[in-house]
Each structure stands twice: as structure tokens, then as C-alpha cells.
């Protein structure tokens, strides 16, 4: 296989990974629709989900375009199996209570905002344009989630206990966000992608400052759990996909 083909395959996998992260978390957040603690929070979570699904659509459409294999964004979203999804484990984790959802959002949006910020310099001009659009949205997400971490962490005894639990639950999935795999290495070389490891320091700084403001400690170190970006998922993803994919799979090509 010549080098151009290898690079193109890595390029497609890279975009699918980024798109899956956004799509899966968008789907997770949509589960809150009608169930959030207040109507304002309900609107906020639905809006975050909407932004993420929009970003996922743009990224998967671009992946399909590069792949040039007859699939479009919908085919990638609705007609792939669990093992073909390349999202990180963090985004597929169940919502838990509101505190756990906001802890997950705080970690992911903070990371994603740094990631998109760096990707605005991508040598892939379409990816750079998507990132420049999305980074304005994720800054808003990260700010909202950060405020909830502080409000719950520095709130009542009960809200504080729940936020500590939420941060603990999600913490073991954080290392995966900053590991460069073979796809990342190929993308760094072509300057399409960015070095994830370099995002760790600014991420840790924001987390440390925010938790200090919330009067919370950093979660204890767990053995990191990784593998989502290689298609090795937790049991939760299959259940999410069953809900997300069942209509397009049961009624292929249905239109409304």
C-alpha cells in the first residue's frame, strides 16, 4: 500500500474519531431532554447536545468526503457497529446524576476547547474551518460546565458529595484524551492533526484552578482506562447506539 493511501486512511480515521466524540456525547446529553432539574438546565443541556451533534455532522461529512467510498455522514452515524466507533470512553459513559453529567462535561469541553483551538491551524483547511466554528461553541460549553462544578462543589453538603462522586467516576477516562496513537502520529506528521500530549498541561491548569475555586480536591489517581479510540468500548456504547440507530436501521432510507 503506498504512503498516500495510508495517510488518507489515517485522515479518515482521525476525522471519524473527532466526529464520534462529538456525536456520542451529543446523543448522551439528549437523554436529559425533559428530565433535567429545571427547565433552564434542560434547555442548556439540549443546546450543548445540539452544538455537538452539529459538529459531529460536519466532521463525519468531511470524513466521508475524504474517504470517497459512497458513505455519507448519516451512513457513518447510523450504519456502523459498536466496534467501528472511535470515540473516547469518556463521552459514552452513562449520565448518572446531574453532577456526574456536569463533571463529564467540564472535563470533556475543557479538553475539546483546547483541541479545537489547536486544530484551527490544521493543514486540512476544511478541518480548520470546522474547528474555528466549533471552538466558539465549546468555550461556552466549558464555561457553563465549569460554573456548575463550582456551584455544586461549593454548594450544599449533598451537592458537594455528588460532585466529588461525579469527578471521581469520570477521572479514570481522562488520560485517554491525551494519548497519541498511530493515527495521531500520522496526522501530526502531515500537520493535519495536533499533538494531544501538549494539551495536558493547559488542561490540568484549568482543572486545578476550577477545583480550587469549588473547594474540591483533585480526584485520586486511578489506573487509566483506555481503548475507546481503538474501538474497544465499555458496555454502555452498545445501549446508546441501539437507541440512536434503531429507526434508520429498521427503516433504511426512510424520509420525512
Amino acid at each position: 500500500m503506498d504512503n498516500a493511501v495510508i495517510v488518507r486512511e489515517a485522515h479518515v480515521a482521525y476525522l471519524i474519531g473527532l466526529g464520534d466524540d462529538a456525536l456520542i456525547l451529543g446523543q448522551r446529553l439528549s437523554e436529559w431532554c425533559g428530565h433535567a432539574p429545571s427547565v433552564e438546565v434542560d434547555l442548556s443541556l439540549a443546546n450543548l447536545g445540539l452544538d455537538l451533534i452539529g459538529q459531529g455532522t460536519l466532521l463525519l461529512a468531511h470524513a466521508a468526503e475524504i474517504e470517497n467510498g459512497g458513505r455519507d455522514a448519516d451512513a457513518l452515524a447510523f450504519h456502523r457497529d459498536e466496534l467501528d466507533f472511535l470515540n473516547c470512553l469518556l463521552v459514552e459513559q452513562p449520565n448518572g446524576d446531574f453532577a456526574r453529567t456536569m463533571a463529564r462535561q467540564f472535563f470533556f469541553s475543557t479538553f475539546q476547547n483546547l483541541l479545537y483551538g489547536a486544530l484551527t491551524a490544521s493543514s486540512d483547511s476544511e478541518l480548520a474551518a470546522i474547528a474555528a466554528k466549533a471552538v466558539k461553541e465549546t468555550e461556552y460549553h466549558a464555561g457553563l460546565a465549569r460554573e456548575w462544578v463550582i456551584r455544586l462543589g461549593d454548594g450544599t453538603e449533598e451537592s458537594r458529595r455528588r460532585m466529588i462522586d461525579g469527578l471521581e467516576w469520570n477521572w479514570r477516562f481522562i488520560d485517554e484524551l491525551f494519548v497519541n496513537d498511530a493515527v495521531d502520529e500520522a496526522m501530526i506528521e502531515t500537520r493535519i492533526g495536533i499533538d494531544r500530549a501538549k494539551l495536558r498541561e493547559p488542561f490540568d491548569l484549568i482543572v486545578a484552578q476550577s477545583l480550587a475555586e469549588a473547594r474540591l480536591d483533585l480526584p485520586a489517581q486511578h489506573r487509566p482506562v483506555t481503548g475507546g479510540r481503538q474501538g474497544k468500548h465499555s458496555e454502555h456504547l452498545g445501549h446508546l447506539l441501539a437507541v440512536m440507530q434503531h429507526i434508520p436501521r429498521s427503516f433504511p432510507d426512510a424520509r420525512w
Partner: protein
Amino acid sequence: MRDVLCDVPDPEIPAISVVELGIVRAIERSPPTVLLTPTYSGCPATLVIEQAVRHALDHAGFGEVGIRTVLSPPWTTDWISDAGREKLKAYGIAPPPRGASMSSLRNREAAACPRCGSAATHEVSRFGSTPCKALWQCEDCLEPFDRFKCH
């Protein structure tokens, strides 16, 4: 062609046109193409806007004109025209301040109530009924109102 587009309302805020909202980025001559840009990545109105523009162009005899979506540079609330800002206000939506896109996304400055003009207002919810708006309330007339998010 611009005149035709000036009569195409935004589907979610019909008080202003797609031109006033700043999402008609350019009109190219050859080949004749209208360039549109989304306000938000996930804005559900994007497709409806494209259809409305298509319909208006077809109706005015510009059936050959193409429509293309462009993302870069990303849309900002600074592209909302002055006339658009006035219409938003008259419609009950506090327009974003000028230069808002250059500063933080958060609306730290209080918005003037679009009904009574009072500056004593506060944010009720960071998100509102559409991706581009937040929910605010006036402390004088007590009316809730939408505010265009700085973006």
C-alpha cells in the same frame, strides 16, 4: 439578487432577514452563487434557510444560481447589520453589543431591556429557545426577554 434575499426572513426570528442576520456571506458573479454561513454548527434552521433562499431565488427567476455553505471565517454577531439590530430590539430581543465577538462569549455586561429600556436586568439562563439566544429578565418591568448571545 440581494434585493430578493433581503426579503427572505430568518425562519426562527422572522423579524429580520437572512441578509440582516449576516448569514448571506457573499454573492459571486461567475458562476452566480450565493454563499451562506451557519450561525451555529448544529443550528437546525440551516437547511430550512437554504430551502427558503432556493425558493426565493427560483421565484425571482434566478433558478440557475447556486448555493454554497461556507464555514470560514466563522459567523459572528458583529455581522448583524444596524437595521437588523433595531428590528431585533423592536421584536423584543436584546441585540448583541458591537465588538462582542472579540471579547468573551459570556454576556457579562447587562443588557438593556428591549421593552422598557431599563439596564437593571439579569441572566436567567445561559441558553434560550434557540442556539443563538440566552434568557434574561428585567428587574424593573419584570418581563423576561431573549438576548442574542455574543458569539
